[in-house]
């Protein structure tokens, strides 16, 4: 035990003597979390608060165009700018001045009314409810299309949400027109309410924390766990570089001739770097709780979750350190360890679902993501932050993280022993 403490103290001294490196270890993750959260929060705000300017070309000038216009205005996501020329609107979108132009075709309201009325009259005639009970001839109407001009650079998700939104509004208008036509056929009194045209089925989002209250996770709640984990795993870089330096300085050679095992040397490193990763994590939480609200970002909600969060951070830190120890043992130069370490962490993060949610990945990548320790850590963090689950439910994920540490550290020790066997 004395040798482990001595090794840990030496590691502590080496780290604290490199103040530049130490500050990078703490400052870079903070910068990363702040930058990403501001960007993502901006995206949330774009959808929630900031209105996207959209060109509105109303060739219909009828009830339907008014209803769609009203619906889009009430959605609070779009700022409709009226334009009379479809060609001009299309040109402006192509130039990239606008992301979208919506063109409502001529006679849409009139033709829809006509079509619905004819359908309803025909249907009632079939049932024999019409006075003359003769099915009227149908007028041939050309199909109508609402034309959407998108900037080619527009993101797929934005396109899709706009299309869905307009589609829903048109469906609602069509339904209301049908009800209206029926009403006109059944009663002469327009004030008499026969059909309730309001939607019968609605959606309610229910969070796990409070079944009565809808909880919508904000950008901070998503970003702090993801990017903190990313930062924790980045510890493999200084750790492996430090080990390669020791090899190059010859101090590892001296240690190999001294009565101290490689496992003891690694244990000393593990203790110190684990403390660093926990400090990093604590700092991230403080930033989320105290700094974010002061710079206009949503506050991180950690109420009642801190101990569980530190449990996850502890095991995620161990997994990252195990990887760093293995890389530092195998790498022969900083030119090997630094680029490999950095790239590998980015790959693990991508696989782990830090950028793109795992469910949105191709099935092969979803299988691969299950092998990423960052995925186990991220799931564990989301379990605590967003799903509000208990310790026993966290066990599978933290066990995997711990096993990953044990496996990587054991491989490092065996590799070193085999390489230096006498």
């Amino acid at each position, binding site marked *: 035990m004395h040798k482990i403490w001595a090794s840990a103290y030496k590691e502590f001294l080496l780290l604290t003597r490199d103040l530049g490196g130490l500050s990078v270890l703490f400052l870079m993750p903070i910068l990363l979390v702040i930058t990403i959260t501001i960007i993502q929060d901006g995206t949330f705000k774009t959808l929630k608060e900031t209105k996207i300017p959209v060109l509105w070309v109303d060739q219909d000038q009828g009830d339907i165009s008014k209803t769609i216009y009203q619906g889009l205005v009430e959605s609070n996501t779009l700022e409709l700018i009226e334009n009379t020329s479809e060609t001009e609107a299309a040109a402006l979108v192509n130039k990239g001045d606008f992301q979208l132009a919506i063109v409502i075709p001529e006679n849409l309201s009139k033709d829809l009314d006509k079509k619905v009325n004819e359908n309803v009259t025909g249907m009632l005639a079939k049932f024999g409810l019409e006075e003359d009970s003769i099915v009227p001839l149908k007028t041939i109407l050309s199909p109508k299309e609402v034309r959407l001009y998108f900037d080619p650079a527009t993101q797929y998700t934005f396109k899709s949400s706009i299309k869905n939104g307009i589609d829903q509004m048109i469906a609602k208008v069509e339904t209301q027109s049908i009800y209206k036509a029926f009403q006109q056929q059944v009663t002469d009194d327009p004030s008499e309410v026969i059909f309730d045209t309001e939607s019968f089925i609605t959606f309610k989002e229910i969070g796990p924390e409070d079944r009565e209250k809808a909880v919508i996770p904000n950008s901070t709640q998503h970003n702090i766990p993801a990017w903190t984990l990313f930062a924790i795993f980045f510890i493999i870089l200084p750790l492996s570089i430090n080990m390669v330096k020791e090899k190059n300085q010859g101090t590892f050679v001296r240690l*190999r*001739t001294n*009565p101290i095992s490689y496992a003891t040397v690694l244990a000393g490193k593990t203790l110190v770097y684990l403390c660093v990763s926990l400090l990093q994590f604590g700092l991230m939480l403080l930033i989320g709780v105290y700094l974010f609200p002061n710079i206009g970002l949503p506050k991180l909600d950690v109420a009642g979750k801190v101990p569980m969060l530190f449990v996850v951070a502890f095991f995620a830190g161990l997994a990252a350190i195990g990887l760093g120890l293995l890389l530092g043992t195998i790498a022969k130069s900083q030119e090997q360890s630094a680029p490999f370490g950095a790239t590998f962490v980015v790959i693990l993060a991508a696989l782990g679902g830090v950028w793109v949610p795992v469910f949105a990945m191709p099935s092969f990548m979803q299988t691969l993501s299950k092998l990423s320790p960052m995925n186990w850590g991220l799931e564990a963090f989301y379990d605590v932050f967003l799903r509000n689950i208990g310790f026993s439910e966290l066990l599978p994920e933290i066990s995997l993280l711990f096993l990953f540490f044990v496996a990587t550290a054991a491989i490092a020790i065996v590799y070193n022993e085999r390489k230096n066997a006498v």
Partner: protein
Amino acid sequence: MIQINQLSKKYKGAEGFSVSDLDLNIDKKEIFGLLGPNGAGKTTLISMLSSLIKPTSGSFSINGLTFQENKKELKQLIGIVPQEYALYPSLTAFENLSYFGSTYNLKGNTLKEKIHELLKTLGLSNFANKKISTFSGGMKRRINLIASILHEPKVLFLDEPTVGVDVQSKNVIIEHLKQLNAAGTTMIYTSHHLNEAESFCSRVAIIDNGKIITKGKPKDLVSSYQYARNLEDVFLAITGKALRDHA
């Protein structure tokens, strides 16, 4: 004290053996010099004896112990002064020595006193709390030596312990090594400084191409070669004057 039997080492991809079927006995309290041109096999032999590399064949024992059976005891028994400085540049002399001392289970006041005693003996008392990165080559060599003798080893391997140091530092190092030897430490020493080896070693072996060409007391070797005035003459007579550059 040290028995070496048919010891050989061939590195992966190398054409020949770096050390080939080497037999040698070194007695207790000897200062045994391994001399030879670059690439002769001196460092390879010391690296095998200090457990840094695995022999291809053959065996050796130190004080009757082998690394295969008595690894822990042997590591406690020996000390190695490597050719490189093998110190942490960002730590102070005291911090470096404290750490390396603790690996030998030395701790507390015993370790502290031992460090200060050796720093004083080797003229570095005033630099205990200075970072190694600020030290001159001679100072680093002395710290390198102290790090290897804190635990009072019975056998000390010295791989060019005075290379690249000033005359004063060299003198302090050699004088202290002589004191250690007088106190009972057996030493195996490699150097390119043949004058130093001639006065310092009780016995030397001249190695070339992994084999011992000759061995004996320096004076006996000098007298056994006609026209040889010193060990350097003997060395050149045996190994030739051709350059031995290795890449």
